[in-house]
């Protein structure tokens, strides 16, 4: 265990470390998490440090602190973004708190604090503990470059998702029960939602290992999802909204739910070039 973990607080606001610390890696994560381990394994998860806190003489409520080493800041941002839905609380690079669950990311670390029992009794301690943990983390990395390429006008910053699994895509924008874009560990995808001119267009960008893979993925998508699109990759769907898909190099970009063909094309044209 590194020095960083040894410097984490053993008590906060009357809550004390309870039981031995634990660590789990990719092989053993299932021993710890019953419910969400698979999501972490779709990212570059390395290991997790676990510490529990209880008040003296009481086993409940309990605060469970998890510090996940996700390998890179991109991946830490990704796991945070995959389930983000609450308001930020100003901890780390980005954070949220609600329903007895506090989540934040900073550098290559994703941190989760969850309370078992009455969340109201633990809220103040959780916030202070989270701030203490964040202060111990290095501050390196800004998150994925793909996110920096998103058009900014009308972008809903709380609805940017970065992932390597079709399940995350479907959770935020159901596309198909099959993986029709070939999204996997060797691809990086960004889903972003916009508010523009009274419409809520959705932009999906998927980066493949090669231009050939991207071409194949787009062709497969068009064949299954909108065979009427033709060479322009454009179609008006049954709900009256427009979908437009393109490939450029190793990147497939698709706009869903646009109010017009022009809106779809404009959003795609505003994607910043790589390396900016």
């Amino acid at each position, binding site marked *: 265990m590194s020095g960083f973990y040894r410097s984490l607080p053993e008590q906060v606001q009357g809550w004390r470390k309870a039981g031995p610390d634990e660590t789990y890696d990719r092989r053993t994560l299932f021993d710890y998490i*019953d419910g969400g381990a698979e999501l972490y394994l779709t990212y570059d998860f390395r290991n997790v440090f676990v510490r529990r806190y209880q008040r003296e003489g009481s086993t409940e409520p309990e605060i469970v602190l998890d510090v996940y080493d996700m390998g890179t800041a991109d991946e830490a941002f990704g796991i945070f973004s995959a*389930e983000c839905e609450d308001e930020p609380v100003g901890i780390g690079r980005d954070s949220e708190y609600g329903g007895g669950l506090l989540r934040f990311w900073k550098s290559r670390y994703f941190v989760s604090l969850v309370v078992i029992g009455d969340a109201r009794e633990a809220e103040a301690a959780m916030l202070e503990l989270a701030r203490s943990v964040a202060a111990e983390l290095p501050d390196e990395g800004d998150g994925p470059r793909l996110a920096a390429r998103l058009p900014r006008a009308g972008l809903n910053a709380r609805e940017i998702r970065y992932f390597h699994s079709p*399940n995350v895509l479907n*959770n935020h924008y159901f596309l198909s029960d099959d993986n*029709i874009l070939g999204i996997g560990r060797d691809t990086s995808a960004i889903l972003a939602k916009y508010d523009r001119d009274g419409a809520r267009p959705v932009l999906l960008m998927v980066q493949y290992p090669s231009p050939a893979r991207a071409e194949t993925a787009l062709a497969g998508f068009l064949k299954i999802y909108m065979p009427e699109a033709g060479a322009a990759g454009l179609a008006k769907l*049954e709900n009256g909204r427009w979908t437009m898909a393109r490939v450029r190099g190793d990147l497939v970009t698709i706009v869903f739910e646009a109010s017009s063909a022009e809106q779809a094309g404009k959003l795609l044209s505003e994607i910043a070039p790589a390396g900016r």
Partner: protein
Amino acid sequence: MSGPVTRRDFMKGTIGVAIAGGTAFGGLQAPSGKTTRVVLVRNDRVWLAGGALDPAVVQGMLDEAVMKLTGEGDVRAAFRHFVKSDDVVGVKSNVWRMLPTPRELENAILARVRQAGVPAERIGVDDRGVLGNPLFRNATAIINVRPMRTHYWSGVGGCLKNMITFTPRPSDYHGDSCADMASFWKLPLVAGKVKLNILSMLNPLFHGRGPHHFDQRYVWRYNGLLVGTDPVAVDAVGLAIIQAKRRSFFGDERALQTPPKHIELADRRHGLGIADLRRIELIRLGSSTDILI
């Protein structure tokens, strides 16, 4: 339908709620073939003022459901449909700390198993230790009981999933979003032994977040139990209620994080039970307030 289901199928109205968890009860002609019975019992007085469960109300709910399921007027006779005095009885519970099987429900089951004539030394309760538990290794009858909750990788966790601790490596069954969960019901320690399935809908989790897939805001007091002999049917009804709650809460057809296809496949691919709601006789007992189904 051939090919993958896409968002456009919903736009065209060719999918409806089927993909979300089965066809609605009634309305459509039920296909011919075998049917099964599931009892939903609800009591809005099951929670005490301090937030604990009322053991007497839980016992009453269980008794009422089992009597209705079996058609017996006497609870002892009803339980004898599932356990006999010479049985070794394992109560397969669930200890997930965020939302475990309520102790009051376990105790209600144990009380009736003893009344059915099974001596205490031949009754056991376990979850993650079943493989090393001599009582479960020698069990001749299993009663399966756990709470309903959403689950990141399998969509929902219900009675079907509860048998996963009978496998040496549960992650072996995680492929394709746990599609073939029914296969561990064919293991020698399980096959043919599960006599009764009880899905706690007292306070199910209808949406999860975070590494432990838990958020207290999405636990709601439904105050119910689902009881049946067919684990597929019990889960199918539980799933329909979860889906209805999500529609009611979120105001749209929000997909589960993973499609819970293991329930439908337990029927179609493995023949373990019935997932088609049109072939499930759902008997509703007790409160109908916000029943959702």
